[in-house]
């Protein structure tokens, strides 16, 4: 190695190493994500990154849709303190209920519970507690990174890597006293990372019958 370095200039060596690092990083990045349904790739092209926190506002369906593909591939998923989650909708998206863990009412132990769940479950959908201190949330982030599991927060979270917000939602099928809810269109804004800049907007169509 030394002999090679001696022949080539330091700049070219640096460049070669840089290229190698970036190539390794990029492959790891793809491994480092949970897959999402083909329909959801418009929202998150690379899938859900492992070990991060996503904060979702405005739609529970979106959380279920994001989790579905990973669950279908045999990943264990968890639901913490979302007592009103519609199971039929979850099953409709294709989430495997046999590998879904439902934890209710953690009370004071919210933080330790979510940590314990993140240790073994790949994806956890949570409703955040009323108050989260910055230190607690960064401790949890570290734990998530270590366990390589992803948390989807239904609401605001102080240190989320990505924020997904439903800007508007519209339905077809329902008229003035007739019909029934059928297809849905969601306008979704995704803010990736903590860097400033305009969020990416995308449109998501959810047909009534064939969700999967």
């Amino acid at each position, binding site marked *: 190695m030394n002999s090679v370095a001696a022949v080539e200039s330091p700049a070219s060596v640096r460049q070669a190493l840089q290229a190698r690092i970036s190539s390794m990083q990029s492959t790891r990045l793809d491994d480092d994500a949970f897959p999402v349904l083909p329909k959801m790739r418009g929202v998150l092209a690379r899938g859900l990154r492992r070990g991060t926190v996503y904060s979702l506002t*405005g*739609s*529970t*369906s979106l959380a*279920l849709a994001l989790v579905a593909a990973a669950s279908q591939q045999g990943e*264990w998923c968890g*639901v913490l303190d979302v*007592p*009103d*989650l*519609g*199971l*039929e*909708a979850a*099953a*409709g998206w294709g989430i495997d*209920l*046999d590998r*879904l*863990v*439902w*934890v*209710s*009412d*953690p*009370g004071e*132990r919210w933080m*330790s*519970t979510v940590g*314990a*769940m993140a*240790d*073994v*479950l790949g994806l956890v959908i949570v409703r955040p507690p009323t108050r989260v201190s910055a230190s607690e949330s960064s401790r949890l982030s570290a734990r998530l990174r270590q366990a390589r599991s992803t948390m989807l927060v239904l609401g605001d979270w102080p240190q989320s890597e990505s924020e997904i917000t439903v800007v*508007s*939602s*519209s*339905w077809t099928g*329902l*008229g*003035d*006293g*007739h*019909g*029934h*809810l059928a297809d*849905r269109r969601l306008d979704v804004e995704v803010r990736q990372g903590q860097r400033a800049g305009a969020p990416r907007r995308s449109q998501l169509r*959810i047909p*009534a*019958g064939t*969700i999967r």
Partner: protein
Amino acid sequence: MSASSSRVIVVWVPDWPIVAARQNLQATDLDLTDELPMALIDRGTVFACSSLARAAGVRRGLAVREAQLRCPELLVAPYDAQADSRAFEHFVTLIEELVPGVRILRPGLCAIRARGPARFYGGEQQAAATIRQALSESLASARVGIADSPFGAEQAALRTQESAPVRIIDPGTTRGFLAPLPISTLDDAALVPVLRRLGLHTLGDFAGLDRTAVGVRFAEAGLRAHARASATDRLSGAEHAPEADLGADVAFEPALDRVDQIAFGVRAAAESMIEQLAHAGLVCTALLITVTSESGDRSERSWSHPHHFSAADVVDRVRWQLQGSGGAAAGPSAPVERIEISPSRVDASTNHEAGLWGTSLDERVHHALARLSSLLGHGAVSTPSLGGGRFLAERRVLVPWGDESPQTQRDLPWPGSIPPPAPATVFSAPRRAEVRGALGEPVDVDARGTTNTAPVWMAFDQAPPLTISAWAGPWPVQQRWWDSDKRRSAARFQMIDSTGMAWLLILEDHTWAAEARYD
């Protein structure tokens, strides 16, 4: 098979249910004398009665009231089939000390092959006498019948007298002994009336028929009955095997009141129990834990496992039972004196072998969630499943972690179900709502299922009202219309508010509530 090799001894205890019930009642220190006539009641009618009661006119199948009318001093107790079989177990072990291979035909009646005991005790008469003598110490009058077939021996035992408690039908004459007995002896409610209509009034008549012809006309049941009538039936079924005691029993002296101390104390016993089971080639899939506290309280609970119990799982279940639903901080209300663990369901371990590559990940999940259950209290961690029901909230079934999932009735047609998509939020407690028409009048549905006016705005709790941009309904939901207490009758509406949010509203008793939200 020669006649001597198929000889059968049948031991019968007259009025066994009564004997068993008496033993049970005496165990609870009830002052009881044998002189009191007694009857056991099963579903409102007399199931069994003592000889005194029979003398007073009480019969099997009589209504309780009628029995009490005929015999006013009658002692009435409910029939407990479980206790009945349990008590007979003791009786069988007494016989087993003398002769092996006892088969229980039903509580109060058991059969043994006669050849061995007859040879050992020097004759059938002597064998019967030995058995009776052994039983006479703990039980009153056991009767013995010996014949060429189990059915014949049973009939012989049933036809003994108190003065002559043993009846031996000589080899080769069993068919002749059975021949004059009425056809109803077969005790087959489906077959007996038909045979009687065919003019067969005794077992001899029936046994005289050609076996093949009986098989053609009456199939399996007929062939079985024919074999019994012609004394060619053989002993079948498994022999009674003495049950090894596989449970664990831990007593604490002095009594303990801290959960972790108790859990620690139980650990060794749990480990040896699981090891013993493994040694017998078994795994435990359900167990019963009984906790007895110093104050004499007993708490009993059965636990089942999605796979099978390991020693740590057993300790966890003890812990959960002591904690109740209170979580890690909770403990038993009084110091615990004793913990009994008995496996209530076991399975061959070959059915539970791990795969070649193991099930490591799932096991990790199981361990972590079991720990979480201990932390938060049993029931906080659960696996959800879809159940049946007309209302959305009742279709959600949560099975506590570590319990078995119940059979769901999800696939039944549930009329009134709403077309897909399913709402992502289903309120466990419906949210009160207010829905008004254009003039501010409440929207309601009349008996014919039509709305009085089109809904224009709605409001939840104290929130500001939202304009309704589209709606549909009412869709009627009727539940248990036959049950006046539990019946529910409601009308469903789908509505979209001005923000684009879709709701499933329900109108019941002129009150509006949100059942679900399509968010």
